């Protein structure tokens, strides 16, 4: 904030000369003022609803949906799957983003200590019956852990549909495209064999339209956050996006509208003296909500991130006319983000991140990767190099979805925010 925000928040007098770190004081009383404000009003109600959905590990809303519609529900590990296809076949796609802070009793028995946390809680959810309502699980090509989880799922739940979705790493329509087309077709056949509607072009076009509408809303909210992060704080946006993993897309789209309106209408949402940062690295295992709040409380506005990435994997709209499967294939090949789980020919990842930093006028980058997350952590040195070349300050830390202790992270993020706030302003 180059001398911009003058709000009298907890951060002190709000000028660039405010004492370093004071944003972090008062930690003994975690219910801070800013949140109390956000907790009230219409936006607060939407957020509360979404939080409940996110924390309902037994997927009550999915169960209710199934009862209502009699349709199939199929889970997926949420980095990217062609949800449009499921939707067109009348199947509810359900993103499974681990178990958050749930207690793990048996899931740990399947994993050594040096493997990230999300597969443990996912197995735990499977074993404790939380995922009973799912008729199958899709495991897109994210990393070796998820890949192997697909095999484990086959062994643990022999009655269910289990598919490993090997997304192409070749982006030539005549090769990777053909392969992906085939994968999509065979997924559709598998679903149909389980009682879903056969895949038809008309229905798929409608589904593409529905998801395009959803993606557009999300892009708008992201844009709003980039401009005025105090209006859509990330700890809210995050749970609103998480709700999209379990809700039917139309409902989620409506909910996004509702949230946006309420957030914009809230007069209490005024800027604080905070540093603008882009958070990157947590695209698979999701950070605990407390971590996001901690970053915000330590003086950061998160103006861009890669949480709940499935909503944003495709950068633009999918074409709505012509061969819909081909359109999905083309969108995947040509319009996906530069992602750690994809083979990228030249170093576009760093460039894309730097571009995101510029677009969002961020002042720094926080690498926030899940512990033991190979794709994120192996990417980090390359991305750091790009960020450093661009002269952007950065820092990094690791988390796991059940981290309950944020003291160290607060200290780091606080120091980072301090050094941006104190001196960026002083120079201006």
């Amino acid at each position: 904030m180059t001398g911009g925000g003058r709000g009298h928040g907890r951060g002190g007098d709000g000028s660039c000369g405010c004492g370093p770190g004071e944003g972090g004081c008062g930690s003994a009383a975690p219910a801070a003022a800013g949140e109390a404000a956000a907790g009230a009003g219409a936006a607060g109600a939407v957020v509360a609803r979404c939080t409940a959905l996110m924390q309902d590990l037994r997927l009550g809303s999915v169960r209710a949906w199934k009862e209502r519609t009699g349709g199939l529900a199929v889970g997926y590990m949420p980095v990217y799957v062609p949800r449009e296809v499921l939707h067109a076949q009348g199947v509810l796609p359900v993103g499974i983003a681990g178990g958050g802070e749930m207690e793990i009793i048996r899931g740990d028995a399947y994993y050594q200590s040096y493997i990230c946390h999300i597969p443990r809680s996912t197995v735990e959810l499977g074993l404790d019956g939380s995922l009973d309502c799912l008729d199958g699980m899709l495991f897109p090509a994210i990393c070796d852990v998820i890949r192997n989880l697909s095999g484990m799922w086959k062994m643990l739940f022999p009655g269910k549909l289990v598919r490993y979705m090997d997304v192409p790493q070749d982006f030539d329509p005549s090769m990777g495209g053909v392969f992906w087309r085939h994968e999509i077709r065979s997924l559709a056949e598998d679903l149909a064999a389980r009682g879903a509607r056969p895949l038809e072009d008309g229905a798929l076009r409608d589904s593409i339209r529905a998801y395009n509408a959803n993606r557009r809303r999300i892009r708008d909210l992201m844009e709003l956050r980039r401009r005025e992060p105090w209006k859509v704080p990330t700890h809210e946006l995050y749970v609103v996006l998480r709700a999209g993993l379990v809700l039917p897309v139309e409902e989620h789209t409506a909910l996004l509208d509702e949230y946006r309106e309420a957030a914009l209408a809230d007069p209490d949402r005024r800027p604080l003296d905070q540093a603008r940062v882009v958070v990157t690295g947590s695209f698979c295992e999701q950070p605990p909500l407390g971590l996001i709040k901690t970053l915000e409380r330590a003086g950061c506005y998160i103006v861009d991130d890669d949480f709940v990435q499935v909503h944003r994997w495709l950068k633009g709209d999918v074409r709505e006319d012509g061969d819909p499967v081909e359109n999905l294939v083309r969108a995947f090949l040509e319009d996906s983000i530069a992602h750690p789980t994809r083979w990228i020919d030249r170093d576009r990842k760093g460039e894309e991140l730097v571009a995101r930093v510029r677009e969002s006028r961020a002042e720094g980058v926080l690498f926030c990767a899940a512990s033991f997350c190979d794709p994120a952590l192996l990417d980090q040195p390359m991305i750091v190099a790009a960020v450093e070349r661009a002269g952007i300050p950065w820092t990094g830390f690791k988390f796991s979805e059940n981290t309950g202790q944020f003291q160290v992270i607060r200290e780091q993020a606080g120091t980072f925010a301090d050094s941006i706030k104190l001196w960026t302003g002083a120079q201006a």
Partner: protein
Amino acid sequence: MSEAQVRKDRSQERQKQMIAEHYRRLARCGETGEKNVYTYVPGNLTELMRSFHALPVLPEINALQSGMRGKSRDYIAAAERDGHSEDVCTYVKCDIGMKRSGNVGPTGERLPDPDLLLLSYTGCFTFLKWFELLREEYDCPVVMLHVPYQGDGVITDAMRKYVVDQLREKVIPALEKATGRAYDEDLLRENLARSAKAEDDLVWVLQSARNRPSPIDAYFGGVYYIGPIFSAFRGTEDAVLYYRELREEIEERLRLGKGPVTPDGDMGEERFRVVVEGPPNWTSFREFWKMFSDEGAVVVASTYTKVGGTYDLGFRHDPSRPLETLAEYCMGCYTNLNLPSRVDLLARYVEEYAADGLLVNSVKSCNSFSAGQLLMLREVEKRTGKPAGFIESDLVDPRYFSAANIKNRLESWFQMIEQKRSGGGGR
């Protein structure tokens, strides 16, 4: 191991020479103009590369050699200093560290910069990152061959076509460009025919462990036996000769009723027969091996010796279908099999090789191998009724080899097998 052996076997001498010669040629690439291609062990297209007269360089082999030569600690530290995480695969860090420390290979000679990175992306996502990182280091061309995973335990026509198309449209042109030579399918066929010959002999050797006592150790000894065929030599005449000699030597051991060679010479009484899943530890390879041989334990089958091809399942390179056979080879490598197939294979090993149990060495580096091993262990135990053991270490990071801990678990496991055998009580 070699220095400890009383009499060096001929095959071993040959392998040493092959390796030395290979690295010498690599070191002289600059002068001779020979081209080299970096690639990985699983799904390596050695016959194809050699048909372009390109020399393969295998970063994993360099990393494991660094581990064995006690250099990996420093290399890994160097990579971590440059911002690599403690959490990730140490092969990658060891390789990057080696590059940053002068790129001196296992024979003490410098390795050439790659003319091409051939990313045959088989069975492991880390490969992808690894070459992204190397691309930054060398700024050289990369060609990606996406080998689909056997998610459902089968190779479909669509998968085969996808790989063959990539080979034809991407990999071959890239090799042509990098080497300045035209694709020569006849030469490729000749190479493939030689591969198949060597593969026959290798399979015979590996299966000799069905005998009691087993004349080989299919893990600690096995990693030497697979050396030529998994790395730079498949399809060469040298490899054919090596495997013929090796087979003769093992036939001789069998005739004499001898057990396997160990770090301390011939092994004594064969007390335990075990199947091992997972790669070995390289930094304390001898110490690790001795924990087995001292107890009279011999490994009769292992999956690690299948990462560069599951020949004992019947696969042979087939000169009559050159690109298809390469595609099938890539897709059939061990880590490209799904977990149920891996369990099937292990259970089969325990039974066919009359093993006392399965031991899993879970390495921290390798999610491809390790994620899910605990379930595999349970399943194999359930199916075979034989007790399974579990230890943890790493490939080349000495910090993760805790000798006391591993020894403790191994000892307990062996004693448990024995206690079970004798029906309780003392020994």
